[in-house]
């Protein structure tokens, strides 16, 4: 067995820490800073979800339950500190969320992990619905519709850190994010992590080796609950309010989207997914009402054409890059990329025109689309958009052949050399 702590890994994680520390120096606006904080939380959430889906093969639709409960417990702990009934530095407050998530992972996991595969997916959904419905019932703990408000500065200033300014909260999130990433990566290297993979691939054989698949799933669920809870605790500190939506089914669906778009087959896949989804959600929602539709279609596209997610797309290029043939793909990629852009432009214009036509309250239905004014009430604009869309589709299909030919050539060459 190779050593777990190698010099390469130490250098890598140190570089990651430096990267996190330097990010706010590059992105100085307050908008970017709160987005970075959001991304850190999303990364923990998506990675903890992938402990279930990617590593143990458990397709959960209720992961936000542990995230949300962690957030609620953390918010209450903060309020208790404020009332002087409890003492814990705010820096370690996410641990409260983590322990809460772990506890509920242990309890609910006992019920859910007795089954795997599709039944597990349904049961996790049922549990999520149950918790979400209970949250609106027990208004004392969950605060009903309004949620639970809290104050992250209750600890006062410790060595000048009061967690009042967002930059301090960012460093708190970044620190915990790094600790969680390292922790979750370390788990993949343990015998438990390996057994989780075995249980995912072939539970019967795992049983023959002498491991109880149910117990392995349960343990992984508990650990995933812990990390999700830490993420939830950070969310409570970051937003200073926790509502029942935090543990709802939509939030759980978000974890699925982030992990799958990023790629569940690689440890770092969900990190890409979390960053991308957070970026899309806050950037797109500023510009268009239809962003959820684009987002859903993007997800469907990933499933249908690249089920390994973005991580897999990147890893496909690794042997080509190592063989120094990446630039042979460039002409095809730039051609089909620009054709795809035309196609997308036509498609977006189409959807936006339908949306603006349906918006009944506006008297003037014309709107600006990338600097061009489109008027959905006039047929000429529909014809124009259709022409752009059709031309884009035709060009895109034509140019994908160029890409495919380049790939076939490279693959053949690599096969001759024995690389692939």
């Amino acid at each position, binding site marked *: 067995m190779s050593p777990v702590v190698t010099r390469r890994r130490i250098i890598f994680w140190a570089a990651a820490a430096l990267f996190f520390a330097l990010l706010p120096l590059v992105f100085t606006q307050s908008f970017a800073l709160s987005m970075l904080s959001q991304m850190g939380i999303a990364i923990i959430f998506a990675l903890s979800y992938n402990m279930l889906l990617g590593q143990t093969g458990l397709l959960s639709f209720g992961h936000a339950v542990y995230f949300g409960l962690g957030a609620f417990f953390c918010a209450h702990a903060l309020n208790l500190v404020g009332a002087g009934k409890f003492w814990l530095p705010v820096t370690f407050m996410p641990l409260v969320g983590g322990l809460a998530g772990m506890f509920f992972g242990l309890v609910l996991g006992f019920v859910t992990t007795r089954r795997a595969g599709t039944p597990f*997916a349904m049961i996790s959904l*049922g549990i999520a619905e149950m918790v979400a419905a209970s949250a609106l019932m027990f208004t004392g703990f969950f605060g009903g519709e309004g949620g639970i408000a809290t104050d992250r500065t209750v600890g006062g200033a410790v060595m000048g850190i009061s967690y009042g300014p967002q930059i301090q909260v960012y460093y708190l999130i970044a620190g915990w994010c790094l600790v969680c990433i390292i922790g979750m990566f370390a788990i993949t290297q343990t015998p438990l992590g390996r057994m989780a993979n075995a249980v995912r691939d072939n539970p019967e054989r795992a049983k023959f080796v002498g491991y109880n698949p149910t117990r392995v799933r349960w343990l992984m669920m508990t650990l995933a609950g812990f990390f999700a809870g830490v993420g939830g605790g950070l969310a409570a500190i970051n937003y200073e309010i926790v509502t029942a939506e935090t543990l709802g089914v939509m939030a759980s669906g978000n974890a699925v989207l982030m992990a799958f778009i990023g790629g569940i087959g690689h440890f770092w896949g969900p990190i890409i997914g979390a960053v991308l989804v957070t970026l899309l959600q806050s950037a797109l929602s500023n510009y268009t009402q239809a962003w959820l539709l684009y987002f859903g279609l993007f997800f469907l596209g990933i499933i249908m054409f690249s089920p390994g997610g973005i991580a897999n797309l990147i890893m496909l290029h690794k042997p080509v890059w190592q063989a120094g043939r990446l630039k042979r793909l460039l002409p095809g990629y730039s051609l089909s990329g620009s054709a795809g852009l035309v196609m997308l432009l036509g498609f977006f214009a189409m959807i936006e025109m339908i949306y603006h036509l349906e918006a009944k309250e506006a008297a003037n239905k014309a709107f600006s689309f990338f600097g061009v004014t489109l008027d959905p009430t006039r047929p000429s604009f529909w014809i124009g958009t259709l022409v752009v869309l059709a031309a884009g589709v035709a060009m895109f299909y034509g140019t994908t052949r160029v890409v495919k030919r380049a790939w076939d050539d490279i693959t053949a060459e690599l096969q001759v050399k024995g690389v692939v």
Partner: protein
Amino acid sequence: MEFFLITLLNSLSYGLLLFMLSSGLTLIFSMMGVLNFAHASFYMLGAYFAYQTGLYVGFWPALFLAPLLVGALGALTERYGLRTVHKFGHVAELLFTFGLAYVIEEIVHLIWGRAPVDYRIPAGLDFTLFTLYTTQYPAYRGFMMLVSVGMLAALYLGLTRTRIGLVIQASLTHPDMVEALGHNVPRVFMLVFAGGAALAGLAGVIGGNAFITEPGMAVAVGSIVFVVVVFGGMGSLTGAFIASLIIGALQTFSVALDYSMLDLFGKLGLSVSPHSSWHGLWSITISQTAPVMPYLLMVLMLIVRPRGLMGTRES
């Protein structure tokens, strides 16, 4: 007594509606191993299609047109969506339907807006069927039950008495053998998927105007249908039927009961001070717990009997 009988009738019509949804879901699941997350979305589309076509041709033609349209959409989904994803495994198939549900909801937003649409009970059915004690029972509820039972009988006869039904049944257990005998199993899959979608669509047509036609209706009913299928046992039609009636009754009755533990304590001569920390818990009424009940029942069933009421296999 009056309350009990009326609520029983209501729960029966709701339970039968649930069965129209869960029967398609469980058939698709036992055949293809695909849990269709978009099933409730087809239910929603049924309601919206009936509303839209009803504007032009009236309710009665829409009753037939809307399920056919939804069925055609189902066939397209299977042929061009699921069959492409099939080679990537069950998780990808499941997530495909999950993403599809998402997209369908957004398309409904896009076309019909976020507010509920005015999909009404047809004037021909808007009268009182009978009066029980003092409560008037609407004819449309009776019509819903009639359609559901008719569909149930047609489904049963279709599956057991027709040639295609026998092929479907054989494909459930021995797809390779059926293929070897010269039947086109992928086409049978497509047919079953389309049929399940059409059933969900029909449920939407008759349920949409009885309840409410809005973009959130798929999410609201979707998870309940999952509970029904898990509770009844995955892949069992009989189990789905019994579970539909039980869950339907549970939901309808618990919504109507406005008692809490405090009332019980009051009957026993006990009183809880409003300052006690448990007062909040005891004052929750049964109707408030209604949304949680089905899920609680499902969790209990999973602990006691993991394969469900009538399920034959563990997973």
